[in-house]
């Protein structure tokens, strides 16, 4: 078991090193690394001094290590566009993205699982069929169209909710969060629904197909043959077995919420790291792009790791297998 965890962490670090290298390569080979670090307003003297200090003529692996070391300290250079240290800019934007992702992730998982179970159990029912048909449209709808449509319906036509921005924020332990204020919460609803809807449809379809698969299995047949009621079968037996594979994929979906936040944040002008990134792409702001890549890579790898370990906790079979033989 310990061996499995260590090996898994090792893999995660390896992926992170690879992502880090891409990030480093962008920083080093695109544009001017000195400019990346100092910003465009630096003087010639600054440049000469920094070139000396950074050892830009060192071998690439050494430079890569130095890049990683700087990244650990939060030093990603200076943004071309805003002229501030990238680390600071990202840090100030991060809470907005994280709270948005958390709320929409919660919505996606909660409703995704509920609808998934419902459509699996009442497979041929009218409501279930309607939900399934609608969900196919949901999967085909680009996220930005959902956002635009929601703005049109709830902000422009009904006037219930704000169409852009983050509203007011309240500070908790020095972190500014919008969800704690009424205006902030209202501003968050449309972006969170937009961001969560697509993930919800995916989770729902996944839960449904896994659950149908489980309901066809022998032990469910046997449970029926033992005279168990529908409730016991659906929720006592099928649900847990359904959720084991669902957790893996759902975990990965949560990672992609961070990525899709780029789109939602742009549509709603939500001041998070996604909006920062898209502006960076527009202005070819290399330091921000490479830092963002590293950040998202770290988040994804962490999520994958947690998901794998969680999977391991839930399924008793894995523990025995690992304890016994090691590999699968």
């Amino acid at each position, binding site marked *: 078991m310990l061996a499995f965890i260590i090996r898994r962490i090792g893999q995660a670090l390896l992926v992170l090193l690879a992502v880090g290298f891409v990030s480093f390569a962008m920083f080093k080979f695109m544009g001017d690394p000195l400019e990346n670090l100092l910003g465009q307003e630096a003087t010639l003297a600054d440049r000469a001094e920094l070139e000396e200090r950074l050892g830009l003529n060192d071998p690439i692996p050494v430079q890569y290590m130095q890049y990683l070391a700087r990244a650990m300290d939060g030093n990603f250079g200076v943004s071309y566009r805003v002229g501030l240290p990238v680390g600071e800019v990202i840090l100030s934007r991060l809470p907005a993205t994280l709270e948005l992702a958390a709320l929409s992730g919660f919505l996606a998982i909660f409703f995704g699982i509920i609808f998934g179970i419902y459509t699996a159990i009442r497979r041929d029912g009218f409501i279930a069929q309607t939900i399934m048909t609608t969900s196919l449209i949901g999967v085909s709808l680009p996220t930005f169209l959902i956002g635009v449509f929601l703005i049109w319906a709830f902000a422009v036509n009904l006037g219930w909710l704000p169409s852009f921005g983050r509203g007011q924020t309240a500070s908790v332990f020095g972190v500014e969060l919008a969800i704690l204020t009424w205006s902030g919460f209202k501003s968050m609803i449309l972006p969170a629904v937009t961001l969560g809807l697509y993930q919800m449809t995916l989770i729902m379809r996944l839960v449904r197909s896994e659950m149908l698969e489980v309901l066809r*299995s*022998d*032990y469910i*047949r*046997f*449970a*029926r*043959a*033992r*005279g*168990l*009621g529908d409730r*016991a079968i659906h929720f*006592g*037996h099928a649900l*847990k*077995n359904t959720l*084991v594979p669902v957790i893996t994929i759902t975990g990965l979906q949560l990672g992609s919420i961070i990525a899709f936040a780029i789109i939602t944040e742009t549509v709603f002008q939500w001041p998070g790291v996604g909006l920062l990134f898209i502006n960076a792409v527009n202005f070819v702001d290399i330091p921000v792009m490479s830092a963002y890549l590293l950040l998202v890579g770290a988040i994804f790898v962490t999520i994958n790791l947690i998901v794998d370990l969680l999977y391991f906790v*839930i*399924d*008793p*079979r894995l523990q*025995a297998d690992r304890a016994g033989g090691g590999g699968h």
Partner: protein
Amino acid sequence: MSTLPVLSISDLIVEFPTRRGVLRPVDRVGFDIARGEILGVVGESGAGKSMCGSAIVGLIDRPGRITGGEIRLSGERIDTLSQEKMRRIRGKRIGMVFQDPLTSLNPLMRVGDQIVETIRTHLPVSEHEARRRAVAALEEVGIPAASTRIDSYPHQFSGGMRQRVVIALALAAEPELIIADEPTTALDVSVQAQIMALLKRLCRDRGTAVMLITHDMGVIAESTDRVAVLYAGRLAEIGPTRDVLSSPRHPYTIGLMASTPSPTGGADRLSQIPGAMPNLRAIPPGCAFNPRCTKAFGPCTSELPVLKPVGRNEVACWLFDDALTGNPNKAEENA
């Protein structure tokens, strides 16, 4: 105690509507099982054995359904019961054992919880009492250290032990009838005999009737009192096991016996029935066996034979129709 058979089915028909017409995996099948009796049901895969078992407990997969005949459990008609009433019969009055013990148990649930859950579904007992009974049930099926093993997960048992757990589950609520669908097929040969012996002993002790579905003639010979032979969803022959094995009448049964190595029989080479059982979509008119039958004649290809007593067996074959056939077959039978 009544003399009614525990299970009595007659003219049972199961149909599946498909896009290429209606299929009949079970076609006018009827038989009885008495208290304490073990009836073997044999046939090739697809002959309708398992479908018969599913029909009895009301668990046919959609879109299949029973379209004819009736099923009685100790005299009470059960094929027309509501879903909910049927559910209360399953597990309580009819227990089932499936083929593969590896997949019959929920892998994520302790075996004890699965037994306790079954007991409490059917009997008004406390959690504590149910657990005590679960331990007793596991002990009875021969699981060592049952009081600790009860908290194990299925994967922590061997195949044979798991099938013992499945049997304990099937018997947990003291049913009148057990339907065992190929209970030993997936097990190691060395374990098969033990499991059959266990099943036989427990059912004899309690007077439980057993419907034993199998394609293993060895199991039939050793364990059953009577045997029913199914072919393409129809009953070909039924009778006391000894008679069917020693003097089969239906050409299909004869072929089946000839293709099975017998422990007592000589070293004759095994023969094979030419051809294969027809697909359910293309069952020939008349007797379903006629294209493969060496003795087929006039009515076989046009009219459906019905069961007729021949000796101690009952056989669905035109060869035994006095009005139609000459003496050769009769003479053979009397000899």
